[in-house]
């Protein structure tokens, strides 16, 4: 318990603030490129591919895929921030070493990085959701809760990313992580088409990844299809997210304090 989440004090928020300060200073570099991918997805899947598909699960394709676009934009932001971004701060700039030479603990740096990655995913989901609302793709009021679940999905991926970042010696290993996990998760977790299309073992595998639950919950909110099953999904997704965060925080401690 000593170096895990329970050891973290509110001081961790100071590290989050440092990241936010840098983000704001470089705002234009951060916001515009982050919107390109989701806008491209809306164009490709909505107007392009969507025009060949009449309906999926009883709704126009673009309405179905909106949750997937939102989800993949969020997790990608969090993942990039907590892989390349965190690694750069940790190994190249030695910023973390500077932080832990003060009363800030290594676990606090770890949690702050995760929360920061999640925050970036959240900001992004708010922007993308606004675009989806403006375009009339999303029109149920429950959709305003979507960013909350996008925040949690991003938190989940940020924690996974910190688990990887705190364990690798060089950045090149991220390529394995992206190819082996992030990209498959981005496409196979019910983001762009229902996973019921898959053979059962693959479906099972998809449900193991908590992202599937987060996307499903978000989609249900956007399409106004609430059911009790979503509660179970939420419990599972939250529990795994917490578990990943605990592992990531310990792992960061082990990396920084040798």
């Amino acid at each position, binding site marked *: 318990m000593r170096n895990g989440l329970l050891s973290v004090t509110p*001081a961790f928020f*100071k*590290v989050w*603030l*440092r990241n936010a*300060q*840098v983000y704001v*200073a*470089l705002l234009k570099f951060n916001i515009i490129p982050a919107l390109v991918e989701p806008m491209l997805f809306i164009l490709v899947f909505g107007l392009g591919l969507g025009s060949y598909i009449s309906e999926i699960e009883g709704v126009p394709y673009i309405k179905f895929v909106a949750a997937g676009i939102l989800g993949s934009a969020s997790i990608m932001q969090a993942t990039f921030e907590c892989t390349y971004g965190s690694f750069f701060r940790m190994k190249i*700039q*030695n*910023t973390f*070493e*500077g*932080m*832990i*030479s*003060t*009363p*800030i*603990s*290594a676990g606090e740096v770890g949690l702050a990085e995760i929360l920061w990655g999640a925050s970036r995913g959240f900001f992004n989901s708010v922007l993308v959701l606004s675009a989806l609302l403006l375009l009339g793709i999303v029109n149920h009021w429950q959709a305003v809760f979507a960013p909350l679940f996008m925040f949690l999905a991003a938190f989940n991926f940020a924690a996974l990313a910190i688990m990887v970042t705190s364990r690798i010696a060089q950045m090149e290993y991220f390529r394995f992580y992206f190819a082996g996990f992030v990209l498959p998760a981005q496409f196979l977790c019910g983001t762009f088409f229902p996973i019921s299309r898959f053979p059962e073992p693959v479906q099972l595998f998809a449900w193991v990844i908590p992202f599937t639950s987060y996307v499903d919950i978000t989609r249900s909110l956007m399409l106004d299809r609430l059911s009790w099953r979503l509660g179970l999904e939420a419990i599972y997704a939250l529990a795994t997210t917490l578990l990943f965060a605990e592992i990531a925080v310990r792992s960061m401690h082990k990396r*920084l*304090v*040798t």
Partner: protein
Amino acid sequence: MVIQAKALHKRYGGVVAVESLNFSVEKGRCYGLVGPNGAGKTTTMKMVYCIVLPTSGSLHVFGMDVLREPRRIKARLGVVPQENNLDPDLTTWQNLMVYARYFGLPRQLARERCREQLDFMHLSERAGTPVPDLSGGMKRRLIMSRALVNDPELIILDEPTTGLDPQVRHLIWDKLLELKDRGITLLMTTHYMDEAQKLCDEIIIMDQARRIDEGSPAELIRRHLPPYVLEVRASRGLAADILARFPGFSHQESGQSLYFYAGAAADFDGILSAWPRAEHVLRPASLEDVFLKLTGREIRA
């Protein structure tokens, strides 16, 4: 005692970085850790500021165990690391303010301290400069300012002047002496023996993970060497000739140089009159001679 280390060990896998180290640091004095690269100096310092955990033995800073109270220890010390770890995404001023926040200083106090420390290190005009635009010497001075924002009782400096021009080195020396006069304890490493001799009250010589001696610069010189050194530049042939003619003269050979040691300058007259044209320097023994005597003059593979 500000620092007390007893039988301190640090092992990384099979590699022993620090072995059976005993030392203590008294308040208000400057301690120097000197030794060849890889001797364990940086590891020792990192254990003091709680980012490296001892494998065994005990280490207390301000009377607190580094394993139990790292947060409270770190709150009271300032660190000048060997490698620049300033935040390149921020300006000079922001670097200090962000750091002050890590120490939990209230905003108003933080502002005052940062202004004071920038002024102390002659950086006030650079407050708005992004870190990547600072020169090497300015970065070093900024790291010094940063180490002072929390008004530390102990400052740990890992090679504070490596790679700096003489002006900045002298400025840093002045400032360190000023801090010592204020009663702040200093623990530093350096590869410059002139720096160690000038700043340190007490020197701990380390080699191959162990402490091999400790004392004030003057004591160390007295303990290990006669007061005078004659350094003669000599090819292998000339060296053999001199040594054949003056057997038994206390000496050391290294590369193209011969070092003779004696209790009085006049003792070298024989050598100098026999080879009047040999290139030579006659000087008092220095800390550098002691260092090289104890750790060897040769480069290790």
